């Protein structure tokens, strides 16, 4: 009898696992269960749809006939509500049961709500699915003033959407600059300036204390902790993700802000694997447990998980992730874990070009590049090699830096 694989989630992690299983285990039975009403689409392009820059068609990746052609049993609108690891079965909201030999959890996260009054009012948006993007586009097109909350990588997408749709927005941030855990004020100021050019005003030392609504329950203002009132008919909230671990609360599966897996994407239960945003994985590059929240990493984890479900131990996940912002005239790229580390070096290398590299025990663990992306491969290489550069960190700030520019390590 052929092996059966059940995958929960048809995001990029689940879908790349399904693709790999089909290619490398041609006789396997593959079932993909998703609570969304549509098959795999490009989650990192839906912001372009909301900006009004892209139509729907190019955002789809797997049409439904892809699943028929590849003999993958896809179940849309199917919420998995329970996992029984003793019986090797999952149960859905409609009472259906799917038995498996191997199970993959590729269930990602759900945006967090602000714990404030009227946080669920009409006109207040979170951003994760294509359906969210459709609602955001419709709502922002009718809006005149907006408020954005969440000074991170998803918040800036809301800012770009408002900018592209000619909606004036106040971007309320708790600290003194955007993504303060990864950027200093100097680097962040380049991002603030780009926002201002698009009609988005960063407001520092702020945040949201409560939303006010009109008689129809539609948002009409955000009030910050200083008592300042910002009128808005659209609000975008991107303050972080809750990982979808409630599904496994009553199972023996280990969790720690995600599902804990080893470098082969296997959980503490032998035939249960996880991949993508949901994982807290053994990061071989960093040397400790870590989380990634990026498209490339989720795709790679799906592939690696599939290979190990077929043959455990066959492939390790060893990856330096990156995440870019492409909304402005200049590029921005963060790589690795730019918010970690015990030290950092940073510099403005030319007009409009800034970089920061985070170090831990003298080794590169992540960084941010603004304007000039040319050292990205070199920095990622140093990170993968775990090279101690504590005595030469300043070299990293030289324009045109290449790994060969570093003096050879003593043991070489």
């Amino acid at each position, binding site marked *: 009898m052929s092996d059966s694989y059940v995958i929960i989630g048809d995001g990029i992690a689940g879908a790349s696992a399904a693709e790999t299983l089909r290619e490398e285990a041609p006789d396997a039975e593959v079932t993909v269960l998703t609570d969304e009403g549509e098959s795999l689409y490009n989650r990192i392009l839906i912001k372009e749809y909301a900006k009004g*820059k892209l139509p729907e068609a190019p955002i789809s990746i797997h049409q439904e006939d892809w699943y028929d052609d590849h003999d993958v049993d896809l179940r849309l609108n199917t919420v998995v509500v329970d996992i029984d690891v003793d019986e090797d079965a999952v149960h859905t909201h409609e009472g259906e049961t799917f038995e498996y030999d191997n199970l993959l959890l590729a269930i990602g996260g759900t945006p967090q709500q602000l714990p404030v009054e009227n946080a669920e009012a009409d006109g207040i948006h979170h951003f994760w699915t294509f359906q969210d993007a459709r609602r955001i586009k419709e709502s922002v097109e009718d809006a005149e003033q907006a408020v954005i909350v969440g000074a991170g990588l998803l918040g800036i997408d809301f800012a770009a959407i408002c900018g592209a749709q000619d909606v004036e927005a106040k971007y309320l941030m708790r600290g003194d600059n955007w993504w303060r855990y990864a950027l200093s004020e100097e680097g962040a100021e380049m991002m603030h300036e780009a926002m201002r050019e698009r009609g988005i005003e960063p407001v520092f030392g702020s945040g949201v204390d409560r939303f006010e609504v009109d008689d129809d329950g539609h948002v009409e203002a955000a009030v910050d902790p200083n008592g300042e009132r910002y009128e808005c008919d659209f609000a975008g909230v991107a303050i972080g993700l809750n990982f979808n671990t409630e599904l496994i609360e009553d199972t023996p599966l280990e969790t720690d802000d995600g599902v804990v897996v080893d470098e082969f994407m296997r959980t503490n239960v032998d035939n249960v694997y996880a991949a993508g945003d949901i994982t807290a994985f053994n990061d071989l590059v960093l040397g400790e447990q870590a989380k990634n929240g990026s498209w490339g990493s989720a795709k790679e984890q799906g592939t690696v998980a599939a290979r190990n479900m077929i043959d455990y131990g066959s492939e390790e996940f060893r990856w330096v992730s*990156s995440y*870019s912002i492409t909304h402005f005239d200049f*590029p921005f*790229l963060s790589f690795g874990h730019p918010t970690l580390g015990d030290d950092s070096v940073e510099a403005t290398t030319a007009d409009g070009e800034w970089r920061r590299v985070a170090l831990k025990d003298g080794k590169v663990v992540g960084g941010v590049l603004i304007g000039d*992306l*040319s050292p*990205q*491969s070199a920095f990622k290489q140093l990170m993968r090699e775990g090279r101690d550069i504590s005595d030469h960190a300043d070299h990293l700030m030289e324009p045109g830096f290449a790994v060969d520019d570093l003096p050879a390590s003593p043991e070489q």
Partner: protein
Amino acid sequence: MSIRESNRQLRLRRTGRMPSDARVRHFDELSDDEKQLVAELAGRPRTAPETDTLEDGDVVKFTDYYLVRSR
């Protein structure tokens, strides 16, 4: 990414119009080498040897939309 054994050269041209059948890819979907290449070619009158995965007619979302030309 590997360089194809052909004499074709890759260029990136800023594009405002999206061909309806174009494959559109976000910069973050590209391999590290392709990222390096796109960052170098975008907005500049430069060419580079063709790669395995960036096809003629593809569109890449970088700081703008760029149409890949391979000739």
